[in-house]
């Protein structure tokens, strides 16, 4: 009874603490608009440069656009259209003013108006409204995951992998665009197929190819919503690594002075499947003659300096093919999967390490604590890594309260955040755990910060020893009482 009462007061404390986070939860969900919504034609794109980078195994797009307010009133909302399919794979949206980097935050969020509609909008809210007739240069960066298909879909072990990607040569926009061009950057100059379009002006045919870059445009004025589907097929002889789920636990221990990290990956290779099954002889020979392969052989995790006790396991147990180097300048964990991962294969694994608390945890002037950890670490691969679902759980000590957090991850990527109870070793009430769920993140965001502040009263920190003290005393007193009882039995009249 008593414990449950303590528990409920504790919970109420927690809910106070998490008020800040619940508030931000509501702002991250999409705004609902009527089903017939159409973005008002209040802007004109004077000049637009669309840069699509397919150098990594995700697509990074960058739209630099000079917008002009053609309405009579000041405007502060700009809409970017996406297909419903793209919307589910969209991540890491960041908007900046290209001219003035100090201009306050641009908030980008999905607009919810009609689930059935094929066109969905992303709304960008300006820090301050744009006056009529004025113009501003926006830099919109976003990423698309699961963007490619291997073509051919299955190849031999020793063959080169080609990926297929289709997009619109005209940048999709909700507004009239006067002038635009689209550049596509490739990892190599080997681009066997791409859609050709009739040229305009002094260019006979689009696109123009310069090394590993294709340029469609410049095009003249296009109306709102104009599209021109084109597709490219290019060599990509590297693994298409896709992490469908990453669970990252960060456990703070005040008693031990330690911050423990554990990451559980569900890793897939989304590249070409093997047309004939895996052949060890060919693989071993290729290791010498032609080490370049689209199979995933190795991953490197650069960790924060001071990391120690790294481990690498999977469902069956420890994986012995890993190397960990930790010194004053770096901490590098190199792991090899148990088997080379080819297209269509899956390899879930777990890694973890420890670090001294002093590297991540500080005491604040007000008597609380502040924790600063990377939101995402993960492997650093030349070909990139994409994460579909990410769950970061910061497990604070038992009894921590008044939890607040801040992260520099794009707000659009965060789905929900909240405070939970996690029970583990020597816990009576359970530890306070801040859980942040995000989606569609990329290795470009590794190293982005997550800052958490919390209070940790002295009594809460003494809870564990007190519980053990209580149990030990109960045993001693029990022994004394039982001993006395026996004495009474034994005494004769």
């Amino acid at each position, binding site marked *: 009874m008593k414990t449950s009462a303590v528990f409920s007061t504790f919970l109420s404390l927690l809910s106070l603490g998490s008020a800040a986070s619940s508030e931000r939860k509501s702002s991250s969900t999409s705004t609902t608009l009527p089903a017939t919504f159409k973005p008002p034609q209040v802007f004109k794109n004077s000049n637009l440069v669309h840069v699509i980078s397919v150098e990594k195994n995700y697509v990074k797009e960058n739209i630099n656009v000079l917008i002009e307010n053609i309405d009579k009133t000041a405007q502060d909302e700009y809409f970017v259209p996406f297909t419903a399919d793209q919307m589910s794979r969209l991540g890491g949206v960041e908007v900046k003013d290209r001219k003035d980097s100090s201009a306050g935050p641009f908030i980008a969020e999905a607009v919810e108006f009609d689930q059935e509609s094929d066109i969905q909008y992303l709304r960008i809210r300006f820090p301050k409204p744009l006056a009529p007739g004025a113009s501003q240069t926006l830099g919109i960066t976003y990423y698309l995951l699961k963007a490619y298909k291997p073509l051919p879909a299955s190849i031999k072990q020793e063959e080169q992998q080609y990926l297929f990607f289709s997009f619109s040569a005209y940048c999709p926009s909700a507004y009239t665009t006067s002038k635009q061009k689209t550049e596509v950057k490739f990892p190599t100059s080997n681009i066997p197929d791409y859609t050709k379009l009739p040229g305009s002006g002094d260019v006979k045919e689009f696109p123009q190819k310069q090394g590993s870059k294709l340029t469609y445009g410049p095009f003249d004025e296009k109306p709102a919503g104009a599209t021109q589907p084109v597709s490219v097929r290019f060599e990509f002889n590297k693994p298409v690594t896709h992490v469908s789920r990453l669970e990252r636990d960060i456990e703070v221990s005040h008693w031990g002075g330690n911050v423990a990290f554990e990451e559980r990956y569900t890793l897939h290779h989304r590249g070409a499947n093997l047309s004939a099954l895996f052949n060890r002889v060919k693989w071993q020979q290729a290791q010498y003659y032609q080490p370049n392969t689209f199979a995933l052989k190795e991953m490197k995790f650069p960790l924060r300096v001071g990391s120690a006790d790294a481990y690498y396991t999977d469902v069956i147990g420890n994986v012995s093919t890993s190397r960990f180097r930790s010194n004053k300048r770096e901490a590098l964990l190199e792991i090899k999967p148990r088997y080379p991962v080819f297209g269509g294969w899956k390899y879930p694994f777990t890694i973890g390490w420890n670090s001294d608390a002093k590297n991540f945890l500080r005491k604040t002037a007000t008597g609380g604590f502040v924790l600063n950890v990377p939101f995402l670490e993960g492997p650093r691969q030349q070909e990139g890594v994409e994460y579909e679902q990410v769950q970061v759980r910061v497990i604070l000590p038992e009894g921590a309260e008044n939890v*607040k957090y801040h992260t520099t991850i794009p707000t659009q990527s965060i789905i929900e955040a909240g405070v939970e109870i996690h029970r583990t070793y020597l816990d009576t009430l359970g530890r306070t755990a801040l859980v942040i769920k995000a989606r569609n993140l990329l290795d470009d965001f590794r190293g982005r910060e997550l800052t958490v502040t919390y209070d940790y009263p002295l009594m809460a920190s003494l809870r564990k020893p007190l519980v053990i003290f209580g149990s030990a005393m109960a045993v001693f007193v029990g022994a004394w009482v039982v001993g006395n009882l026996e004495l009474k039995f034994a005494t004769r009249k």
Partner: protein
Amino acid sequence: MDSSLHEVWQAAAGSPFVPTVGKSSQFLVAFILLLLGFSLGGAFALNRSVVNLPVLAVPAALALAFGVVYMFCAVGVYV
């Protein structure tokens, strides 16, 4: 979400968190405390009386309590 937290972090740069017992000495401390706890507990077990309850049992329980916590940390389960 509160962007002022980053400043809190910066402001606290001078006071990193340092535990009472450092990682390297945890095992030693835990071992000594547990040894003390078990010997006092053993002494109490051999000679159970009201007087010994505060004299032996309470210190034993205290030593055990902190010893257990530090032993958990020392073996890698950071509680």
